[in-house]
């Protein structure tokens, strides 16, 4: 990021390539709508670009990036509760079709499982869903989750535990 702040575009491209997928999935699974996720994704990177000179070396880039995304989520888009719509079902079906290779019964099962998981995620409280996604999707530790979500370490841990428990019960695993 420091290299990019000094004008090296290639440094930004490397950063973008490394984080684009995880950031996008974090946003998509938080809002469960592709159009909103696209918008949030672009907004997040726009802010990163604009704030390149204010980036502090002591902050880990992933944490900083996700912090920006989390603030954008809280600011505007979370007012609309994520909902499981036809779009997410389509995504789930597309994946299941790719993976299952001509086995209709398994395709249907996996599609159903993915859909149920997405539904369960959407039903989680925002803060618990964020804790879950930051841990499982982005691989952050408790300290980083606490920093991104702006809460204490114990709170972050407790949110993650609740999220896992609720999902397990909801999916009967």
């Amino acid at each position: 990021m420091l290299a990019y702040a000094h004008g090296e575009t290639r440094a930004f491209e490397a950063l973008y390539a490394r984080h684009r997928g995880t950031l996008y999935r974090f946003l998509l699974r938080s809002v469960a709508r592709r159009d909103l996720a696209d918008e949030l994704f672009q907004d997040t990177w726009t802010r990163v670009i604009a704030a390149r000179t204010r980036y502090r070396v002591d902050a880990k880039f992933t944490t900083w990036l996700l912090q920006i995304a989390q603030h954008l989520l809280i600011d505007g888009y979370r007012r609309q509760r994520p909902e499981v719509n036809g779009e997410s079902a389509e995504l789930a079906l597309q994946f299941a079709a790719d993976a299952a290779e001509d086995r209709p019964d398994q395709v249907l099962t996996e599609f159903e499982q993915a859909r149920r998981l997405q539904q369960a995620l959407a039903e989680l409280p925002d803060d618990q869903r964020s804790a879950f996604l930051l841990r499982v999707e982005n691989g952050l530790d408790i300290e980083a989750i606490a920093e991104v979500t702006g809460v204490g370490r114990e709170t972050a841990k407790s949110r993650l535990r609740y999220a896992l428990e609720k999902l397990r019960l909801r999916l009967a695993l």
Partner: protein
Amino acid sequence: MTSHRADPDLEIEALQLQHAALIERYRALPAAEPGAHLDTAILKQAALAVQRPPLRRRPWLVPMASAASLVAAAGIGWRVHLANTVEPSAAPRAERYQVLEVELNPPSERQRAVETTVLPVPAAELPKRVDAPRSAPAAAPKPAPDSLESIVQSPAKDRGIEFEPHTQSDHAGIGQLPEQRVPAAPLAAEEDDLATGPAASPVTAFPAVTNSVQSAAPLPAGKLGKTEASGVGRELGASNGEKADTESAQKLSASEWIGRIRVLIRQRRLHQARKEIRALQIAYPELILPTDIARYQR
């Protein structure tokens, strides 16, 4: 007694192991990616952001600003120093209160004055006094051409005198020393002034001028209307003091002299102005200096 706290990361690991099936199922979800159009737009935006020419810094700007600040600070310091050296003494300030006494007379004093004064008879019942005013000046001795009354009654411009406007700073000391105010003259004096009629009006038309001029001129009292009631237009008599030792003292009236001092002050010839003030005070010992001049008195 100590509380044993487990390592949170280990705790989280344990939690994840406990929910391994759930995490496995999550990871099996479609790996959504941003569209190519987003990638293009963002990378283009990032490239544009750093390609913009950086703001050109002008290396001379900071030293220039510092020098300008220093010059300004020195100027202000010098002005402050100058102002401190010509700070008016306490005595002229007290005189200022006398000049402004009419305006500042507290309502309670006014009320007391009204109560102790016989109410005037309505104008309709005083035909002689009401009819008289136009002829009253005829009865009074005609003022000499150089006298205060003639100066007051003629516009300042005609006499070639340029007066400075009466500014709010002239009243800056108001309210600080109320005990030094001179009590108002009885209202009866005002009643007498009714007889002089229009003669009073030019005085009020040039209040800043008359306050100084009036006190300097050797006119008899009771000719100048309201200002007399304030105690400003006291009979001073320039002739009874020491004679002016300068030539200008013999040639100039007090008002012209004051005008000349003002011109000197405007020209920042302060030393000469102070000399003139001293000479003026010798020539007119009881003259109340206008505040704009008194502040240069030493």
